[in-house]
């Protein structure tokens, strides 16, 4: 018994150590996040007002608001999502349902996607510039920017959707086959709806990455800060605006802080909407649909 008591003592010391490590790691993360947000609020909040959101920048962005920049950002994101979502979901469906586990097609495609997901955004920017702006002749435009972001978001979206589909129980696939349903029918009626939370999560990760993107957009959508008149027009995204104000415009710091605050709020808003929708939709599937 004495031996057991000693073991227990050692265990409790180890547990305490482990707790300390876990808690301090969490505390560091929370502190860093609070510091960043706090910094934005302290320096940017007084600039923030309704007119900041609804007026155009003036004096190279030192004064005035960010209305055209908000519009450009949302348009770029909209294009990126509209293009990436169907292509991404279709590719994921193909990989997960129509290629063999361990087969060459799946292995090669998956590897390429994982590499693409890790490619620095500046490379996507240069590719977007060469392909969309020059080769397809779209020039510096919101369209070029949105399409470039779509390329960037695709790997993330495909991989999360693929993971979502592979977590759908196989018994539903077998059940569908046993009823003589085609794989397409199983996919549209059962598998994709069941994977919706994963698709939404992938989309959120993608939008998060896209909304915070600077390098890929400087070369594709440009940084003209007036209100875009069409999708062919050049437009400056929020992240690009922040970069420009901090790096190129002396005295632009206050507006840069305020813009950063808007960007962060936008991301938090998009995320909470997605989480709410996913939860509601997800729980509906189990209990009410």
């Amino acid at each position, binding site marked *: 018994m004495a031996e057991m008591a000693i073991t227990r003592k050692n265990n409790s010391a180890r547990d305490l150590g482990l707790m300390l490590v876990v808690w301090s790691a969490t505390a560091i993360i929370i502190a860093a996040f609070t510091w960043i947000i706090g910094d934005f609020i302290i320096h940017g909040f007084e600039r923030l007002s309704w007119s900041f959101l609804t007026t155009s920048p003036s004096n190279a962005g030192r004064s005035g608001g960010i209305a055209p920049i908000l519009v450009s950002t949302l348009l770029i994101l909209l294009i990126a999502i509209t293009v990436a979502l169907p292509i991404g979901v279709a590719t994921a469906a193909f990989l997960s349902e129509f290629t063999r586990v361990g087969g060459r097609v799946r292995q090669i495609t998956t590897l390429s996607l994982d590499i693409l997901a890790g490619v620095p955004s500046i490379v996507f920017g240069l590719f977007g510039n060469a392909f969309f702006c020059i080769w397809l002749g779209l020039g510096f435009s919101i369209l070029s920017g949105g399409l470039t972001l779509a390329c960037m978001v695709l790997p993330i979206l495909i991989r999360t959707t693929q993971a979502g589909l592979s977590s759908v129980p196989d018994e539903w696939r077998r*059940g569908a*086959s046993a009823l*003589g*349903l*085609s794989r397409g029918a199983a996919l549209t009626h*059962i598998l994709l709806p*069941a994977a919706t939370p994963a698709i939404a999560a992938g989309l959120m990760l993608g939008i998060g990455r896209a909304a915070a993107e600077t390098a890929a957009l400087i070369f594709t959508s440009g940084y003209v800060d007036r209100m875009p008149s069409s999708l062919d027009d050049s437009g400056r995204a929020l992240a690009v605006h922040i970069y420009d104000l901090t790096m190129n415009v002396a005295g632009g710091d206050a507006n840069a802080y305020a813009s950063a605050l808007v960007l962060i709020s936008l991301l938090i808003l998009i995320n909470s909407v997605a989480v709410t929708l996913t939860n509601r939709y997800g729980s509906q599937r189990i*209990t009410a*649909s």
Partner: protein
Amino acid sequence: MKLEFVSYDECKRADSNIRQLAQPTHEVALAAKGITITYSGARALRDVTLSIARNEITALIGPSGCGKTSFLSSLNRMTDLIPGCKVTGHVYHDGINIHEPKTDVQELRCHIGMIFQKPNPFPLSIRRNLEMPLKEHGLTNAAQRYERIEHALTEVGLWSEVKDRLDQPALALSGGQQQRLCIARALALEPSILLMDEPCSALDPISSAVVEDLIIRLREKYTVVVVTHNLGQAKRIADSVALFWFQDGCGYLVEHTPTDAIFNAAQNAITKAYISGARG
């Protein structure tokens, strides 16, 4: 489609290689000839020849790993879905060898439905679980669909339990109800044969009894092939019993005889040992 006809006599002759015919006077619904199944080259089941009589319940019994489920899956080509699985031999249904590559498997599986060990209703409403396959198979008339749904749910004794909550999720039903829903879902497609892979083993004793009674009733209209580990169940519900065994890691059919004969007057040494509980 190229049809390869084989007379029932021929199937029966093949069947007589095995000790005895199940019900020599009855019509054959499904005739398996020389079925051998391999998984990535490794033989799991060798040379099974077995006739399934129409409107009867045929139970496949035997220890785990002797290929009963593999054999059952080969009867409506669900074996196609298993990577690396290869089936040789023939299965005749309505005079057609269903293992012919040209067979329309989607249509085949409507005729020969399958029920699994674990109830697998889709994460949809009770109604949509039955309606979606009907729609996919081209039944566009909503009134006809509703009629079929009502009929199928009545056949499995579920209609009175769920008629007021058809639009609630199927996954909220109890295990036994879910299994009966799955049976109704297969019945809605108007099959002639139902393959059941241990349909009661995941259910509590009461639900299990309800499903068992349902299977007995199904015999009036359908041919049923059921895999079971429960000898008592085989004795209660089956008209004939096929005993599978394995040797050197490969399953084979020991004998296929009427239920009475196997339980009361078993001749084969393996059968005797298995029935008495001495082996398996």
